[in-house]
């Protein structure tokens, strides 16, 4: 399995961004920061599902490790995210997007489709995260505000990052 050095660099960059952001932005338990899903969501469309799963697992584990959260929490959520990613992408993509081996970014998809893609995927990620955290459906209702607030904040953060770093400079 060949790993592109560009992907490794991106991996490290997202990890550092995630760690810095989650230590900087701390306004209590109502908000958790997760921007690393952008890395998984914008992997080239020809990446195989198995590779996506491995990326998600390792990304989640190291994020958990470096942000002092429960080990395995983010990796579990990231795996669920990857499971639904291709379905969500098929919802927003146009004919030909899949064959072009593109990075499904803001430039390629356009603002509305990209935002939908990110928001839906993040919703899956956040719900899965909250389910694993509470380990059951009993306290899910109490977690809903947290999920909603984080979803909103993270979508905006990811859009800012995507616009600031990737929109103009194609990697």
């Amino acid at each position, binding site marked *: 399995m060949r790993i592109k050095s560009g992907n490794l660099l991106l991996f490290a960059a997202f990890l550092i961004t995630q760690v810095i952001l989650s230590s900087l932005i701390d306004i209590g338990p109502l908000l958790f920061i997760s921007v690393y899903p952008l890395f998984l969501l914008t992997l080239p469309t020809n990446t195989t*599902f*198995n590779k996506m*799963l*491995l990326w*998600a*697992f390792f990304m*989640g*584990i190291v994020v*958990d490790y470096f942000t002092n959260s*429960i*080990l*395995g*929490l983010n*990796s*579990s959520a990231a*795996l*669920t995210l990857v*499971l639904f990613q291709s379905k969500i992408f098929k919802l927003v993509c146009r004919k030909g997007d899949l064959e072009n081996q593109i990075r499904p970014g803001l430039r390629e998809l356009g603002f509305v489709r990209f935002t939908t893609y990110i928001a839906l995927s993040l919703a899956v990620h956040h719900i899965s995260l909250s389910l*694993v955290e509470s*380990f*059951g459906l009993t306290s899910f209702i109490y977690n809903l505000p947290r999920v909603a607030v984080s979803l909103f904040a993270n979508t905006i953060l990811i859009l800012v990052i995507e616009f600031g770093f990737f929109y103009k400079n194609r990697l």
Partner: protein
Amino acid sequence: MWDKLPILRALATLTLFILLQGVSLFFVSQDSLFQRVKVAGVFMHIKSGIAEFTSDIKYYTGLKSINETLAAENIKLKNELERLNSIYSKVDSSYTMTPPSPSFSYIPAKIIANSTNKLHNYLIIDKGKKDGISRDMGVVSPNGVVGVISSVAENYSYVISFLNINQSVSAKIAPSQAFGPLVWEGRRPDYATLTEVPYHINFMIGDTVYTSGFSTLFPPDIPLGTVRKSTVIKGSHHQIQVKLFQDFSTLHFVNVVVNNNKPEIDQIKRQNEN
């Protein structure tokens, strides 16, 4: 190979997903006390479910030997009861000067053949001469009278079932102690008829019918069945239909009644007949 077998590929992917997700959840359960307790609870639930299931199976497969030990224990207790009863009646009778009641003991046996659909039904049990069984011994079960030993081989005995139109058992109705022969009429295996109960005897539907004990075959007070309905024959006696407790078709274990005083009684009978 992967491209030719899409199912295999999908399976491999699924396995990878489950594996990675499992590792993640394992980490979660190791890392956080809350999740650890929850996971332990789930495992405990599964474990106890499996344990209960296996113990149920073990219990079911062990039922046969449990049955046999219970039957053996039952016999032991019955013998003990008869022994104590005879001692008790001897103590009692030392004041009233009546002879002690005959004491009975029991031999447990298993039915190996049973018929219920003929007019002359029979059973074969797995105890014979070797076990101390002889002709004209009664055969009972906890639900009533089963029959009478008709012939004995070394290891097996042939029993004329109560479901035989030539067979009769001396029976009585509980409150009044009025007695008469209980016979099977050859129609339905769960009903028998008690005849020769005098007309003036009062009884009610639902009264229990017991063995009277006026024979050397069966001990008294074995419940046989309940009164179902009755008709008066020729204005002189009742003919009572009795619903039997015994279900002959599901019978598996029986007890052979040994009357310990039978030789004595037979001897006295013979003397007076001569």
